[in-house]
């Protein structure tokens, strides 16, 4: 059946989901050299499945994840695997992880998951582990080395000694702008594992790292931040071709630091403001980033979506599938040595809705 799915049927499926939208499903296949193959994977993130009571969940967030799964399944040729970028649940509850997990179970192909803080701070990832395995790991695929990190851990004092109840700890970390939260980090133990893991890999091997929080410092107040980002970056810099893909920020971001390209992915649940629009904050949104359009709250799925990630000769091209909006394509430009938006990078071609304030 899946072999019969065409572009038209994808569009029809979009219409069934309640919106008439064209879904760009082109897959660019560039020439590649050596033994490496070009391939694509899908990336879904930040679904924040939120239990109201019993079997009742917030419909809005459910619809985002359901739609992403349905559309990702219609892609032909099929992607090689699926990444889920973390924050499957809102408050880390078993019921939420089960409800979201049931939706993810409909995905075709191998699923790899990243831990988000909303999955973690109730039981420190215990139930998530039963569903999706270790908190950090690596795998190889078609000549590319992939690493998955748990970048949302924090100090032992905050995690183990500050809060009388696990539910309160989860709530304190769940509030993005909550001053009682604590900066994310990868931590010494995981960095030691990462060093060991990378020592076994040739520096010529393309490396793609997945984290939930940005492995760069953008705005500490909302944890668009990883406290030991520089130490993690130092372990990645010796590789010739390195990409970091992260969730958490619910918006298009991209950057280049030394050898490392960064791409953020969209949420399926809701968009977040760019932190430099918060009048009381000092934020460092990468200057390279051409923002996504300002969200229209009257379109429930606007400024949310999912991604196709094309890997060409080890470099990442992110195809943002934006519901109720135009697709955005951000890919590494070998001549410029950094990721660029394929259409809007030059200031002169940017659109008014891309200006945030």
């Amino acid at each position: 059946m899946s072999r019969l799915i065409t572009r038209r049927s994808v569009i029809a499926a979009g219409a069934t989901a309640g919106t008439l939208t064209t879904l760009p499903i082109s897959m660019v296949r560039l020439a590649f050299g050596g033994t490496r193959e070009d391939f694509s994977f899908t990336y879904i993130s930040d679904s924040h499945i939120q239990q109201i009571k019993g079997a009742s969940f917030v419909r809005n967030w459910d619809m985002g994840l359901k739609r992403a799964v349905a559309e990702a399944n219609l892609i032909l040729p099929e992607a090689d695997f699926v990444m889920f970028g973390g924050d499957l649940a809102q408050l880390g509850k078993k019921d939420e992880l089960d409800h979201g997990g049931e939706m993810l179970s409909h995905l075709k192909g191998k699923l790899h998951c990243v831990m988000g803080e909303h999955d973690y701070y109730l039981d420190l990832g215990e139930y998530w582990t039963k569903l999706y395995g270790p908190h950090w790991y690596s795998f190889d695929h078609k000549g590319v080395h992939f690493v998955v990190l748990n970048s949302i851990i924090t100090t032992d004092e905050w995690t183990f000694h500050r809060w009388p109840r696990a539910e309160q700890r989860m709530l304190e970390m769940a509030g993005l702008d909550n001053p009682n939260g604590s900066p994310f980090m990868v931590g010494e133990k995981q960095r030691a594992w990462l060093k060991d893991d990378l020592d076994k890999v040739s520096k010529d091997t393309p490396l793609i790292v997945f984290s939930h929080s940005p492995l760069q410092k953008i705005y500490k107040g909302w944890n668009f931040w990883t406290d030991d980002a520089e130490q993690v970056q130092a372990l990645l810099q010796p590789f010739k071709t390195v990409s970091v893909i992260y969730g958490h920020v619910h918006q298009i971001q991209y950057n280049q630091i030394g050898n490392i390209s960064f791409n953020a992915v969209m949420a399926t649940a809701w968009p977040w403001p760019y932190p430099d629009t918060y009048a009381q904050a000092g934020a460092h949104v990468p200057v390279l980033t051409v923002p996504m359009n300002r969200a229209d709250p009257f379109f429930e799925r606007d400024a949310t979506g999912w991604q196709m990630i094309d890997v060409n000769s080890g470099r990442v091209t992110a195809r943002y599938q934006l519901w109720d909006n135009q697709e955005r394509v951000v890919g590494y430009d070998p001549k410029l040595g950094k990721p660029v938006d394929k259409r809007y990078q030059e200031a002169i071609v940017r659109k008014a809705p891309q200006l945030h304030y």
Partner: protein
Amino acid sequence: MRRYAIALVLGAVLLSPATLADEFTAADVDRWQGEFDSVAKKGRELWTSGAVGTNGVACAQCHPNAANTHPETYPKFQKQLGKVAQLFEMVNWCIRNPLQGTALAADDPKMTAFVAYIYKERKGVPIDAGKH
């Protein structure tokens, strides 16, 4: 003598800072600021509370620190409503839709608290009514 006494009392009353319309002290300013701050603080509590609507969703989930609310631009033409709208109408839109709750009256103390909090987070941004 009696008339003199009355004049004295009247003079004292008129000179008393509490009764002069155009006089206030630093202590008054502190107290009034405190009144505002306590209402804005109540607004912050409501903003981060899942109890405003019916589905547990909080305003802060989409609007951390009330960002992306642009209070300085209201009243403005809200294209989705097809008219010039006030900030409280958009707050109610969010209460009714993403929060699946019931709209508040414009002068409901909860609405005043929401608006106070939104403006407090936007402090320093120039007024620009009508801006899209």
